[in-house]
Protein backbone atom coordinates (compact mmCIF):
# COMPACT_ATOMS: atom_id res chain seq x y z
CA UNK A 1 0.00 0.00 0.00
CA UNK A 2 2.83 2.37 0.74
CA UNK A 3 4.37 1.90 -2.68
CA UNK A 4 5.19 4.93 -4.66
CA UNK A 5 3.05 5.03 -7.75
CA UNK A 6 3.01 7.34 -10.71
CA UNK A 7 -0.45 8.82 -10.82
CA UNK A 8 -2.28 11.74 -12.36
CA UNK A 9 -3.64 14.47 -10.13
CA UNK A 10 -7.27 13.80 -10.92
CA UNK A 11 -6.88 10.10 -10.20
CA UNK A 12 -4.88 10.77 -7.06
CA UNK A 13 -7.48 13.14 -5.64
CA UNK A 14 -10.23 10.61 -6.36
CA UNK A 15 -8.24 7.83 -4.71
CA UNK A 16 -7.53 10.07 -1.74
CA UNK A 17 -11.26 10.69 -1.41
CA UNK A 18 -11.96 6.98 -1.24
CA UNK A 19 -9.13 6.51 1.23
CA UNK A 20 -10.59 9.26 3.36
CA UNK A 21 -13.64 7.06 3.80
CA UNK A 22 -15.76 8.83 1.24
CA UNK A 23 -18.27 6.39 -0.21
CA UNK A 24 -20.37 8.66 -2.35
CA UNK A 25 -19.45 10.76 -5.31
CA UNK A 26 -21.76 12.76 -7.56
CA UNK A 27 -20.38 14.52 -10.59
CA UNK A 28 -20.73 15.72 -14.13
CA UNK A 29 -18.03 15.64 -16.81
CA UNK A 30 -15.99 18.72 -17.58
CA UNK A 31 -12.44 19.12 -18.76
CA UNK A 32 -9.87 19.17 -17.17
CA UNK A 33 -11.57 17.29 -14.36
CA UNK A 34 -13.02 14.29 -16.25
CA UNK A 35 -10.57 11.66 -15.05
CA UNK A 36 -11.58 12.31 -11.46
CA UNK A 37 -15.16 11.42 -12.28
CA UNK A 38 -14.08 8.47 -14.39
CA UNK A 39 -11.85 7.15 -11.62
CA UNK A 40 -14.79 7.32 -9.26
CA UNK A 41 -17.04 5.52 -11.73
CA UNK A 42 -14.60 2.62 -11.77
CA UNK A 43 -13.45 2.54 -8.16
CA UNK A 44 -16.36 3.74 -6.07
CA UNK A 45 -18.46 0.65 -6.78
CA UNK A 46 -15.46 -1.55 -5.97
CA UNK A 47 -15.18 0.20 -2.63
CA UNK A 48 -18.86 -0.45 -2.00
CA UNK A 49 -19.66 3.18 -2.55
CA UNK A 50 -22.08 5.21 -4.60
CA UNK A 51 -21.23 6.78 -7.93
CA UNK A 52 -23.83 8.78 -9.79
CA UNK A 53 -23.19 10.76 -12.93
CA UNK A 54 -25.72 13.49 -12.42
CA UNK A 55 -27.71 15.28 -15.09
CA UNK A 56 -25.70 18.45 -14.38
CA UNK A 57 -23.48 20.10 -11.82
CA UNK A 58 -26.61 21.38 -10.14
CA UNK A 59 -27.90 17.85 -9.85
CA UNK A 60 -24.53 16.71 -8.52
CA UNK A 61 -24.15 19.32 -5.79
CA UNK A 62 -27.71 18.74 -4.64
CA UNK A 63 -27.14 15.00 -4.51
CA UNK A 64 -24.15 15.80 -2.31
CA UNK A 65 -26.44 17.96 -0.21
CA UNK A 66 -28.75 14.98 0.27
CA UNK A 67 -25.98 12.45 0.85
CA UNK A 68 -24.26 14.71 3.35
CA UNK A 69 -27.52 15.33 5.17
CA UNK A 70 -27.91 11.56 5.40
CA UNK A 71 -24.57 11.45 7.19
CA UNK A 72 -22.30 10.24 4.41
CA UNK A 73 -18.89 11.61 3.52
CA UNK A 74 -19.49 12.92 0.05
CA UNK A 75 -17.64 14.56 -2.77
CA UNK A 76 -18.09 16.27 -6.10
CA UNK A 77 -15.76 17.91 -8.58
CA UNK A 78 -15.92 20.28 -11.49
CA UNK A 79 -14.29 23.22 -13.21
CA UNK A 80 -15.09 26.83 -14.23
CA UNK A 81 -18.64 26.94 -15.62
CA UNK A 82 -19.65 23.90 -13.59
CA UNK A 83 -18.36 25.47 -10.41
CA UNK A 84 -20.52 28.53 -10.99
CA UNK A 85 -23.53 26.29 -11.35
CA UNK A 86 -22.79 24.68 -8.00
CA UNK A 87 -22.81 27.93 -6.07
CA UNK A 88 -26.44 27.95 -5.06
CA UNK A 89 -25.93 24.44 -3.72
CA UNK A 90 -22.74 25.41 -1.94
CA UNK A 91 -24.54 28.29 -0.28
CA UNK A 92 -27.20 25.80 0.82
CA UNK A 93 -24.57 23.40 2.20
CA UNK A 94 -23.01 26.26 4.15
CA UNK A 95 -26.39 27.55 5.27
CA UNK A 96 -27.41 24.09 6.49
CA UNK A 97 -24.03 23.41 8.10
CA UNK A 98 -23.34 20.34 6.00
CA UNK A 99 -19.89 18.93 5.31
CA UNK A 100 -18.94 18.25 1.71
CA UNK A 101 -15.72 18.11 -0.25
CA UNK A 102 -15.71 19.91 -3.58
CA UNK A 103 -12.84 19.83 -6.03
CA UNK A 104 -12.30 22.58 -8.58
CA UNK A 105 -9.79 21.69 -11.28
CA UNK A 106 -9.64 25.23 -12.53
CA UNK A 107 -9.35 26.33 -16.15
CA UNK A 108 -9.34 29.50 -18.22
CA UNK A 109 -12.31 31.84 -17.97
CA UNK A 110 -14.56 33.75 -17.93
CA UNK A 111 -17.46 32.16 -19.82
CA UNK A 112 -16.53 29.00 -21.61
CA UNK A 113 -12.98 30.31 -21.72
CA UNK A 114 -10.84 27.30 -22.40
CA UNK A 115 -9.63 24.12 -20.78
CA UNK A 116 -6.09 25.23 -20.05
CA UNK A 117 -5.00 25.72 -16.44
CA UNK A 118 -6.11 28.84 -14.59
CA UNK A 119 -6.40 30.46 -11.16
CA UNK A 120 -9.18 32.87 -11.98
CA UNK A 121 -11.61 31.24 -9.54
CA UNK A 122 -9.81 32.47 -6.41
CA UNK A 123 -12.42 35.10 -5.63
CA UNK A 124 -15.24 32.67 -6.24
CA UNK A 125 -13.61 30.17 -3.88
CA UNK A 126 -12.59 32.49 -1.09
CA UNK A 127 -15.16 35.28 -1.10
CA UNK A 128 -18.22 33.09 -1.22
CA UNK A 129 -19.20 33.08 -4.88
CA UNK A 130 -22.67 32.09 -3.83
CA UNK A 131 -25.16 34.34 -2.09
CA UNK A 132 -25.17 35.24 1.57
CA UNK A 133 -22.60 35.31 4.32
CA UNK A 134 -20.68 32.08 4.18
CA UNK A 135 -17.13 30.91 3.82
CA UNK A 136 -15.55 27.68 2.64
CA UNK A 137 -12.25 26.26 3.72
CA UNK A 138 -10.13 26.33 0.57
CA UNK A 139 -7.10 24.05 0.29
CA UNK A 140 -4.59 24.67 -2.48
CA UNK A 141 -2.00 21.95 -2.97
CA UNK A 142 1.06 22.51 -5.14
CA UNK A 143 2.01 18.90 -5.82
CA UNK A 144 0.12 15.69 -6.29
CA UNK A 145 1.34 14.12 -3.07
CA UNK A 146 0.14 17.22 -1.29
CA UNK A 147 -3.15 17.05 -3.17
CA UNK A 148 -3.77 13.59 -1.75
CA UNK A 149 -2.91 14.74 1.76
CA UNK A 150 -5.09 17.80 1.57
CA UNK A 151 -7.99 15.91 0.05
CA UNK A 152 -7.97 13.53 2.99
CA UNK A 153 -7.64 16.47 5.35
CA UNK A 154 -10.54 18.17 3.58
CA UNK A 155 -12.93 15.44 4.70
CA UNK A 156 -11.81 15.74 8.30
CA UNK A 157 -12.15 19.50 8.30
CA UNK A 158 -15.52 19.34 6.59
CA UNK A 159 -16.86 17.01 9.27
CA UNK A 160 -15.19 18.85 12.13
CA UNK A 161 -16.55 22.26 11.24
CA UNK A 162 -19.66 21.09 9.36
CA UNK A 163 -18.76 23.13 6.35
CA UNK A 164 -18.09 22.59 2.67
CA UNK A 165 -14.37 22.41 1.92
CA UNK A 166 -12.96 23.18 -1.50
CA UNK A 167 -9.83 21.61 -2.88
CA UNK A 168 -8.63 24.07 -5.50
CA UNK A 169 -6.20 22.84 -8.10
CA UNK A 170 -5.77 23.78 -11.73
CA UNK A 171 -5.52 21.89 -15.01
CA UNK A 172 -1.80 21.35 -14.51
CA UNK A 173 -2.24 19.54 -11.22
CA UNK A 174 -5.29 17.70 -12.46
CA UNK A 175 -3.65 16.37 -15.59
CA UNK A 176 0.00 15.84 -14.67
CA UNK A 177 1.40 12.63 -13.24
CA UNK A 178 3.77 12.55 -10.33
CA UNK A 179 4.87 9.83 -7.92
CA UNK A 180 2.71 9.48 -4.82
CA UNK A 181 2.79 7.41 -1.66
CA UNK A 182 -0.74 7.14 -0.37
CA UNK A 183 -1.69 7.20 3.28
CA UNK A 184 -3.52 4.15 4.59
CA UNK A 185 -7.24 4.21 3.95
CA UNK A 186 -9.71 5.22 6.61
CA UNK A 187 -12.47 2.76 7.43
CA UNK A 188 -15.73 4.69 7.16
CA UNK A 189 -17.11 2.65 10.05
CA UNK A 190 -14.56 4.22 12.37
CA UNK A 191 -15.56 7.80 11.63
CA UNK A 192 -17.20 9.86 14.39
CA UNK A 193 -21.00 9.64 14.42
CA UNK A 194 -23.15 12.48 13.12
CA UNK A 195 -26.07 12.74 15.50
CA UNK A 196 -27.65 15.47 13.39
CA UNK A 197 -27.89 13.31 10.27
CA UNK A 198 -31.09 12.13 8.64
CA UNK A 199 -31.12 8.46 9.46
CA UNK A 200 -34.75 8.01 10.35
CA UNK A 201 -36.38 9.41 13.49
CA UNK A 202 -36.04 6.19 15.44
CA UNK A 203 -35.87 6.61 19.19
CA UNK A 204 -35.15 10.29 18.89
CA UNK A 205 -36.96 13.43 17.79
CA UNK A 206 -36.85 14.17 14.06
CA UNK A 207 -33.68 15.70 12.64
CA UNK A 208 -34.21 18.57 10.28
CA UNK A 209 -31.72 19.94 7.78
CA UNK A 210 -32.60 23.41 6.58
CA UNK A 211 -31.21 26.83 5.89
CA UNK A 212 -34.64 28.47 5.96
CA UNK A 213 -35.46 30.69 8.93
CA UNK A 214 -38.23 33.13 8.25
CA UNK A 215 -37.67 35.00 11.47
CA UNK A 216 -34.79 37.49 11.14
CA UNK A 217 -33.83 37.03 14.76
CA UNK A 218 -33.51 33.28 14.34
CA UNK A 219 -31.56 33.52 11.10
CA UNK A 220 -29.35 36.18 12.62
CA UNK A 221 -28.49 33.97 15.58
CA UNK A 222 -27.61 31.06 13.34
CA UNK A 223 -25.48 33.29 11.18
CA UNK A 224 -23.67 34.67 14.20
CA UNK A 225 -22.99 31.16 15.45
CA UNK A 226 -21.63 30.27 12.04
CA UNK A 227 -19.42 33.34 12.07
CA UNK A 228 -18.07 32.17 15.43
CA UNK A 229 -17.24 28.87 13.85
CA UNK A 230 -15.51 30.69 11.04
CA UNK A 231 -13.46 32.62 13.57
CA UNK A 232 -12.42 29.33 15.12
CA UNK A 233 -11.33 28.11 11.71
CA UNK A 234 -9.37 31.31 11.17
CA UNK A 235 -7.59 30.77 14.46
CA UNK A 236 -6.89 27.08 14.04
CA UNK A 237 -6.64 26.14 10.43
CA UNK A 238 -4.36 28.59 8.65
CA UNK A 239 -1.74 26.66 6.68
CA UNK A 240 1.10 28.03 4.62
CA UNK A 241 4.70 27.39 3.73
CA UNK A 242 7.63 29.76 3.74
CA UNK A 243 10.67 29.05 1.59
CA UNK A 244 13.89 30.99 1.91
CA UNK A 245 12.15 33.94 3.50
CA UNK A 246 14.62 34.24 6.40
CA UNK A 247 16.89 36.81 4.83
CA UNK A 248 14.71 37.69 1.86
CA UNK A 249 14.24 41.25 0.69
CA UNK A 250 11.72 40.24 -1.90
CA UNK A 251 9.10 37.60 -1.38
CA UNK A 252 6.81 36.00 -3.90
CA UNK A 253 3.28 35.18 -2.78
CA UNK A 254 1.88 32.37 -4.88
CA UNK A 255 -0.20 29.24 -4.44
CA UNK A 256 -0.72 25.94 -6.21
CA UNK A 257 1.01 25.32 -9.52
CA UNK A 258 2.41 28.81 -9.62
CA UNK A 259 4.00 28.34 -6.21
CA UNK A 260 5.83 25.18 -7.28
CA UNK A 261 7.16 27.04 -10.27
CA UNK A 262 8.11 30.04 -8.17
CA UNK A 263 10.18 27.75 -5.93
CA UNK A 264 12.51 27.26 -8.84
CA UNK A 265 12.52 31.00 -9.40
CA UNK A 266 13.73 31.41 -5.84
CA UNK A 267 16.64 29.08 -6.56
CA UNK A 268 17.47 30.80 -9.81
CA UNK A 269 17.34 34.19 -8.13
CA UNK A 270 19.56 33.13 -5.26
CA UNK A 271 22.09 31.80 -7.77
CA UNK A 272 22.18 35.32 -9.09
CA UNK A 273 22.51 36.79 -5.62
CA UNK A 274 18.94 38.04 -5.30
CA UNK A 275 17.55 37.40 -1.84
CA UNK A 276 14.21 36.05 -2.94
CA UNK A 277 11.79 34.09 -0.81
CA UNK A 278 8.40 32.49 -1.29
CA UNK A 279 5.31 32.49 0.84
CA UNK A 280 2.86 29.86 -0.27
CA UNK A 281 -0.64 29.93 1.23
CA UNK A 282 -1.89 26.38 1.54
CA UNK A 283 -5.24 27.45 2.92
CA UNK A 284 -6.60 30.24 0.75
CA UNK A 285 -9.36 30.63 3.27
CA UNK A 286 -8.49 31.07 6.03
CA UNK A 287 -5.79 33.17 4.44
CA UNK A 288 -2.38 33.45 6.11
CA UNK A 289 -2.65 37.16 6.83
CA UNK A 290 -0.46 37.02 9.92
CA UNK A 291 2.72 35.59 8.36
CA UNK A 292 2.39 37.95 5.44
CA UNK A 293 1.90 40.83 7.81
CA UNK A 294 5.02 39.75 9.66
CA UNK A 295 6.98 39.55 6.42
CA UNK A 296 5.74 42.92 5.31
CA UNK A 297 7.53 44.49 8.24
CA UNK A 298 10.90 43.29 7.05
CA UNK A 299 10.84 42.91 3.27
CA UNK A 300 10.54 45.63 0.68
CA UNK A 301 8.51 43.91 -1.95
CA UNK A 302 5.90 41.19 -1.92
CA UNK A 303 5.28 40.16 -5.48
CA UNK A 304 2.04 38.27 -6.00
CA UNK A 305 2.10 35.87 -8.93
CA UNK A 306 -1.11 34.26 -10.13
CA UNK A 307 -2.64 32.76 -13.21
CA UNK A 308 -5.31 35.45 -13.00
CA UNK A 309 -5.76 39.20 -13.28
CA UNK A 310 -4.90 39.57 -9.61
CA UNK A 311 -7.29 38.04 -7.14
CA UNK A 312 -5.24 36.70 -4.22
CA UNK A 313 -3.49 40.02 -4.62
CA UNK A 314 -6.32 41.65 -2.68
CA UNK A 315 -5.72 39.37 0.30
CA UNK A 316 -2.00 40.01 0.09
CA UNK A 317 -2.64 43.74 0.12
CA UNK A 318 -5.02 43.41 3.04
CA UNK A 319 -2.21 41.71 4.97
CA UNK A 320 0.54 44.05 3.86
CA UNK A 321 -1.41 47.28 4.36
CA UNK A 322 1.06 49.28 2.31
CA UNK A 323 4.03 48.41 4.56
CA UNK A 324 5.77 46.95 1.52
CA UNK A 325 5.36 47.28 -2.21
CA UNK A 326 2.82 44.81 -3.54
CA UNK A 327 3.29 44.49 -7.30
CA UNK A 328 1.59 41.84 -9.32
CA UNK A 329 2.54 39.51 -12.12
CA UNK A 330 -0.22 37.52 -13.74
CA UNK A 331 -0.88 35.34 -16.73
CA UNK A 332 -4.31 34.45 -18.01
CA UNK A 333 -6.05 32.33 -20.56
CA UNK A 334 -4.15 29.19 -19.70
CA UNK A 335 -0.64 30.52 -19.99
CA UNK A 336 1.48 28.99 -17.23
CA UNK A 337 4.28 31.21 -15.95
CA UNK A 338 7.81 29.83 -16.15
CA UNK A 339 10.48 30.04 -13.48
CA UNK A 340 12.45 32.41 -15.67
CA UNK A 341 9.43 34.47 -16.59
CA UNK A 342 8.78 35.07 -12.91
CA UNK A 343 12.47 35.81 -12.36
CA UNK A 344 12.35 38.54 -14.97
CA UNK A 345 9.49 40.09 -13.09
CA UNK A 346 11.36 39.77 -9.80
CA UNK A 347 14.34 41.57 -11.26
CA UNK A 348 12.28 44.67 -11.84
CA UNK A 349 12.15 45.01 -8.07
CA UNK A 350 15.50 43.44 -7.32
CA UNK A 351 17.34 46.40 -8.76
CA UNK A 352 15.35 48.65 -6.52
CA UNK A 353 16.25 46.34 -3.71
CA UNK A 354 19.99 46.38 -4.48
CA UNK A 355 19.93 50.15 -4.72
CA UNK A 356 18.26 50.43 -1.40
CA UNK A 357 20.69 48.04 0.19
CA UNK A 358 23.56 50.36 -0.68
CA UNK A 359 21.93 52.99 1.42
CA UNK A 360 22.39 50.98 4.57
Amino acid at each position, binding site marked *: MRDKILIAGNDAIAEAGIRAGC*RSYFGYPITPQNELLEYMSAHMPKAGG*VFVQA*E*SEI*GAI*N*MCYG*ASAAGARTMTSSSGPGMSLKLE*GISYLAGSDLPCVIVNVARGGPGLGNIAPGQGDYFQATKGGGHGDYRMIVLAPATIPEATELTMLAFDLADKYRTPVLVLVDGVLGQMMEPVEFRDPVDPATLPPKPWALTGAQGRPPNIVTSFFLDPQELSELNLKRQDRYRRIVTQEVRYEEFETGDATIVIAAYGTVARIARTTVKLARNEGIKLGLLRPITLWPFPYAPLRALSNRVKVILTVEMSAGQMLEDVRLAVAERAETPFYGEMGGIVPTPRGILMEVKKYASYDAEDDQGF
Partner: protein
Amino acid sequence: MPVMTQKMTKVFERPRSLADIEFTYCPGCHHGLITRIIAQVIDELGIQERTVVVGPVGCSVFVYQWFRCDGIQSAHGRACAVATGIKRVNPDLIVFTYQGDGDLAAIGTAESIHAANRGENITVIFINNQIYGMTGGQMAPTTLIGQWATSCPDGRDAGLAGYPIRFSEMVAQLDAPVYVTRQSLYDQKRIMATSRAIKKAFQYQVECKGYSLVEILANCPTSWHMTPTQANKHIADVVTSVFPLGDLVDRG
Protein backbone atom coordinates in the same frame (compact mmCIF):
# COMPACT_ATOMS: atom_id res chain seq x y z
CA MET B 1 -71.71 20.33 20.89
CA PRO B 2 -73.22 17.01 21.84
CA VAL B 3 -71.71 15.11 24.72
CA MET B 4 -70.03 11.89 23.78
CA THR B 5 -71.81 8.81 24.97
CA GLN B 6 -69.92 5.79 26.17
CA LYS B 7 -71.00 3.85 23.19
CA MET B 8 -68.95 6.03 20.83
CA THR B 9 -65.47 5.34 19.72
CA LYS B 10 -62.98 7.57 17.99
CA VAL B 11 -62.84 6.72 14.27
CA PHE B 12 -60.66 9.54 13.11
CA GLU B 13 -57.89 11.32 14.88
CA ARG B 14 -54.76 13.15 13.85
CA PRO B 15 -52.30 10.68 12.27
CA ARG B 16 -49.41 9.86 14.58
CA SER B 17 -46.82 10.86 11.97
CA LEU B 18 -48.30 14.32 11.78
CA ALA B 19 -46.59 16.77 14.09
CA ASP B 20 -48.78 18.84 16.35
CA ILE B 21 -48.11 22.11 14.54
CA GLU B 22 -50.57 24.29 12.68
CA PHE B 23 -50.14 24.51 8.95
CA THR B 24 -49.11 27.87 7.52
CA TYR B 25 -51.46 27.39 4.58
CA CYS B 26 -54.37 29.58 3.58
CA PRO B 27 -57.90 28.48 4.47
CA GLY B 28 -59.02 25.55 2.36
CA CYS B 29 -55.62 24.94 0.76
CA HIS B 30 -55.18 21.35 -0.43
CA HIS B 31 -51.56 21.31 0.75
CA GLY B 32 -52.82 20.58 4.24
CA LEU B 33 -55.09 17.81 3.11
CA ILE B 34 -52.34 16.11 1.13
CA THR B 35 -50.03 16.35 4.13
CA ARG B 36 -52.61 14.63 6.27
CA ILE B 37 -53.04 11.85 3.71
CA ILE B 38 -49.30 11.23 3.50
CA ALA B 39 -49.02 11.13 7.28
CA GLN B 40 -51.75 8.59 7.39
CA VAL B 41 -50.06 6.44 4.75
CA ILE B 42 -46.83 6.61 6.74
CA ASP B 43 -48.76 5.45 9.79
CA GLU B 44 -50.44 2.67 7.91
CA LEU B 45 -47.20 1.36 6.46
CA GLY B 46 -45.43 1.75 9.79
CA ILE B 47 -42.49 3.56 8.23
CA GLN B 48 -42.41 6.73 10.26
CA GLU B 49 -39.07 5.90 11.83
CA ARG B 50 -37.36 5.44 8.53
CA THR B 51 -39.01 8.06 6.39
CA VAL B 52 -37.29 11.23 5.23
CA VAL B 53 -39.33 14.03 3.71
CA VAL B 54 -37.58 16.17 1.14
CA GLY B 55 -39.21 19.56 0.94
CA PRO B 56 -39.25 22.12 -1.84
CA VAL B 57 -39.41 25.85 -1.96
CA GLY B 58 -43.04 26.83 -2.32
CA CYS B 59 -45.97 27.25 0.02
CA SER B 60 -45.01 23.85 1.40
CA VAL B 61 -41.47 24.95 2.26
CA PHE B 62 -42.17 24.01 5.89
CA VAL B 63 -43.31 20.51 4.98
CA TYR B 64 -40.41 19.04 6.96
CA GLN B 65 -42.02 20.45 10.06
CA TRP B 66 -45.37 18.80 9.59
CA PHE B 67 -44.17 15.21 9.92
CA ARG B 68 -42.70 13.40 12.87
CA CYS B 69 -40.02 12.19 10.48
CA ASP B 70 -36.57 13.37 9.54
CA GLY B 71 -36.76 16.10 6.97
CA ILE B 72 -34.76 18.33 4.73
CA GLN B 73 -35.37 21.53 2.86
CA SER B 74 -33.97 21.61 -0.65
CA ALA B 75 -33.12 24.31 -3.13
CA HIS B 76 -35.97 25.31 -5.42
CA GLY B 77 -36.49 22.51 -7.92
CA ARG B 78 -33.74 20.22 -6.68
CA ALA B 79 -35.70 17.95 -4.36
CA CYS B 80 -35.33 14.91 -6.63
CA ALA B 81 -31.55 15.33 -6.70
CA VAL B 82 -31.49 15.71 -2.94
CA ALA B 83 -33.67 12.62 -2.57
CA THR B 84 -31.31 10.74 -4.88
CA GLY B 85 -28.37 11.63 -2.67
CA ILE B 86 -30.13 10.48 0.47
CA LYS B 87 -31.57 7.27 -0.94
CA ARG B 88 -28.36 6.21 -2.63
CA VAL B 89 -26.27 6.46 0.50
CA ASN B 90 -28.95 4.94 2.72
CA PRO B 91 -31.33 2.71 0.74
CA ASP B 92 -33.08 1.61 3.93
CA LEU B 93 -34.68 4.99 4.28
CA ILE B 94 -38.04 5.70 2.69
CA VAL B 95 -37.51 8.95 0.86
CA PHE B 96 -40.18 11.10 -0.68
CA THR B 97 -40.19 14.54 -2.20
CA TYR B 98 -43.08 16.93 -1.89
CA GLN B 99 -43.01 19.53 -4.65
CA GLY B 100 -45.14 22.19 -6.24
CA ASP B 101 -45.59 22.63 -9.97
CA GLY B 102 -43.16 25.53 -10.13
CA ASP B 103 -40.63 23.59 -8.18
CA LEU B 104 -40.96 20.27 -9.98
CA ALA B 105 -42.03 21.25 -13.48
CA ALA B 106 -40.28 24.58 -14.08
CA ILE B 107 -36.93 25.15 -12.42
CA GLY B 108 -36.64 21.51 -11.37
CA THR B 109 -37.41 19.99 -14.77
CA ALA B 110 -33.97 18.45 -15.27
CA GLU B 111 -33.68 17.01 -11.78
CA SER B 112 -37.27 15.71 -11.83
CA ILE B 113 -36.96 14.05 -15.24
CA HIS B 114 -33.58 12.48 -14.62
CA ALA B 115 -34.40 11.07 -11.21
CA ALA B 116 -37.38 9.45 -12.92
CA ASN B 117 -35.24 8.27 -15.80
CA ARG B 118 -32.67 6.75 -13.47
CA GLY B 119 -35.54 5.01 -11.73
CA GLU B 120 -34.50 6.21 -8.30
CA ASN B 121 -36.40 4.22 -5.69
CA ILE B 122 -38.17 7.27 -4.33
CA THR B 123 -41.70 8.64 -4.21
CA VAL B 124 -42.48 12.00 -5.71
CA ILE B 125 -45.59 13.84 -4.57
CA PHE B 126 -46.31 16.53 -7.10
CA ILE B 127 -48.77 19.24 -6.12
CA ASN B 128 -50.07 20.79 -9.30
CA ASN B 129 -52.04 23.88 -8.35
CA GLN B 130 -51.32 25.62 -11.66
CA ILE B 131 -49.74 28.58 -9.95
CA TYR B 132 -46.73 29.83 -7.98
CA GLY B 133 -48.49 30.08 -4.65
CA MET B 134 -45.68 31.11 -2.40
CA THR B 135 -44.34 34.00 -4.40
CA GLY B 136 -47.78 35.52 -4.81
CA GLY B 137 -49.55 33.87 -7.69
CA GLN B 138 -47.36 34.08 -10.78
CA MET B 139 -47.92 31.89 -13.81
CA ALA B 140 -46.66 28.32 -13.54
CA PRO B 141 -45.87 26.08 -16.52
CA THR B 142 -49.10 24.32 -15.59
CA THR B 143 -51.27 27.45 -15.60
CA LEU B 144 -54.28 27.02 -17.87
CA ILE B 145 -54.72 28.96 -21.07
CA GLY B 146 -56.54 32.17 -20.28
CA GLN B 147 -56.01 31.81 -16.56
CA TRP B 148 -55.13 35.03 -14.79
CA ALA B 149 -51.94 35.22 -12.77
CA THR B 150 -49.83 38.08 -11.49
CA SER B 151 -47.29 37.57 -14.25
CA CYS B 152 -49.86 37.09 -17.01
CA PRO B 153 -52.29 39.83 -16.12
CA ASP B 154 -54.23 39.32 -19.33
CA GLY B 155 -54.47 35.58 -18.80
CA ARG B 156 -52.03 33.00 -20.08
CA ASP B 157 -51.59 33.42 -23.81
CA ALA B 158 -50.42 30.25 -25.54
CA GLY B 159 -48.72 32.29 -28.21
CA LEU B 160 -46.51 34.02 -25.68
CA ALA B 161 -46.19 31.55 -22.85
CA GLY B 162 -47.01 28.18 -24.30
CA TYR B 163 -49.34 25.54 -22.94
CA PRO B 164 -49.98 23.94 -19.56
CA ILE B 165 -47.33 21.27 -19.35
CA ARG B 166 -48.42 17.71 -18.64
CA PHE B 167 -45.39 16.61 -16.72
CA SER B 168 -46.70 13.20 -15.74
CA GLU B 169 -47.32 12.33 -19.38
CA MET B 170 -43.69 13.16 -20.12
CA VAL B 171 -42.45 11.06 -17.23
CA ALA B 172 -44.70 8.24 -18.40
CA GLN B 173 -42.65 8.14 -21.62
CA LEU B 174 -39.64 6.95 -19.68
CA ASP B 175 -38.76 3.31 -19.14
CA ALA B 176 -37.90 3.36 -15.46
CA PRO B 177 -40.92 4.69 -13.54
CA VAL B 178 -43.05 1.99 -11.98
CA TYR B 179 -46.02 4.14 -11.08
CA VAL B 180 -47.18 7.44 -12.50
CA THR B 181 -50.65 8.69 -11.72
CA ARG B 182 -52.69 11.86 -11.62
CA GLN B 183 -55.20 12.36 -8.84
CA SER B 184 -57.35 15.10 -7.39
CA LEU B 185 -59.15 16.03 -4.20
CA TYR B 186 -62.30 17.78 -5.27
CA ASP B 187 -64.66 15.30 -3.69
CA GLN B 188 -64.72 12.42 -1.30
CA LYS B 189 -64.20 9.80 -3.96
CA ARG B 190 -61.11 11.54 -5.34
CA ILE B 191 -59.73 12.04 -1.87
CA MET B 192 -59.97 8.32 -1.26
CA ALA B 193 -58.43 7.56 -4.64
CA THR B 194 -55.57 9.91 -3.89
CA SER B 195 -55.03 8.19 -0.56
CA ARG B 196 -54.84 4.85 -2.29
CA ALA B 197 -52.48 6.18 -4.94
CA ILE B 198 -50.12 7.65 -2.38
CA LYS B 199 -50.19 4.45 -0.42
CA LYS B 200 -49.38 2.43 -3.49
CA ALA B 201 -46.50 4.72 -4.36
CA PHE B 202 -44.97 4.35 -0.91
CA GLN B 203 -45.69 0.64 -0.90
CA TYR B 204 -43.75 0.22 -4.15
CA GLN B 205 -40.82 2.03 -2.63
CA VAL B 206 -40.93 -0.17 0.45
CA GLU B 207 -40.88 -3.15 -1.91
CA CYS B 208 -37.89 -1.63 -3.76
CA LYS B 209 -39.82 -1.53 -7.00
CA GLY B 210 -38.54 1.89 -8.01
CA TYR B 211 -39.64 5.36 -8.88
CA SER B 212 -43.18 6.59 -8.52
CA LEU B 213 -44.84 9.92 -9.14
CA VAL B 214 -48.22 10.96 -7.77
CA GLU B 215 -49.43 14.16 -9.32
CA ILE B 216 -52.30 15.78 -7.47
CA LEU B 217 -54.47 18.48 -8.99
CA ALA B 218 -54.67 20.85 -6.08
CA ASN B 219 -56.25 24.19 -5.44
CA CYS B 220 -54.88 27.58 -4.57
CA PRO B 221 -57.96 29.51 -3.52
CA THR B 222 -55.85 32.54 -2.70
CA SER B 223 -54.15 32.96 -6.06
CA TRP B 224 -57.13 31.77 -8.01
CA HIS B 225 -59.28 34.32 -6.19
CA MET B 226 -61.91 31.70 -5.49
CA THR B 227 -63.46 30.27 -2.37
CA PRO B 228 -62.31 26.75 -1.58
CA THR B 229 -65.71 25.53 -2.70
CA GLN B 230 -65.45 27.31 -6.04
CA ALA B 231 -61.94 26.04 -6.44
CA ASN B 232 -63.04 22.43 -6.06
CA LYS B 233 -65.66 22.93 -8.68
CA HIS B 234 -63.13 24.57 -10.98
CA ILE B 235 -60.88 21.54 -10.64
CA ALA B 236 -63.70 19.15 -11.35
CA ASP B 237 -65.09 21.10 -14.30
CA VAL B 238 -62.08 22.71 -15.93
CA VAL B 239 -58.73 21.54 -14.63
CA THR B 240 -59.37 17.84 -15.09
CA SER B 241 -60.21 18.43 -18.72
CA VAL B 242 -56.68 19.73 -19.30
CA PHE B 243 -55.04 17.29 -16.90
CA PRO B 244 -56.95 14.01 -17.18
CA LEU B 245 -57.09 11.93 -14.06
CA GLY B 246 -55.91 8.38 -13.78
CA ASP B 247 -52.93 6.05 -13.82
CA LEU B 248 -50.45 6.61 -16.63
CA VAL B 249 -48.02 3.85 -15.70
CA ASP B 250 -48.33 1.00 -13.26
CA ARG B 251 -45.56 -1.54 -13.57
CA GLY B 252 -45.78 -2.55 -9.92
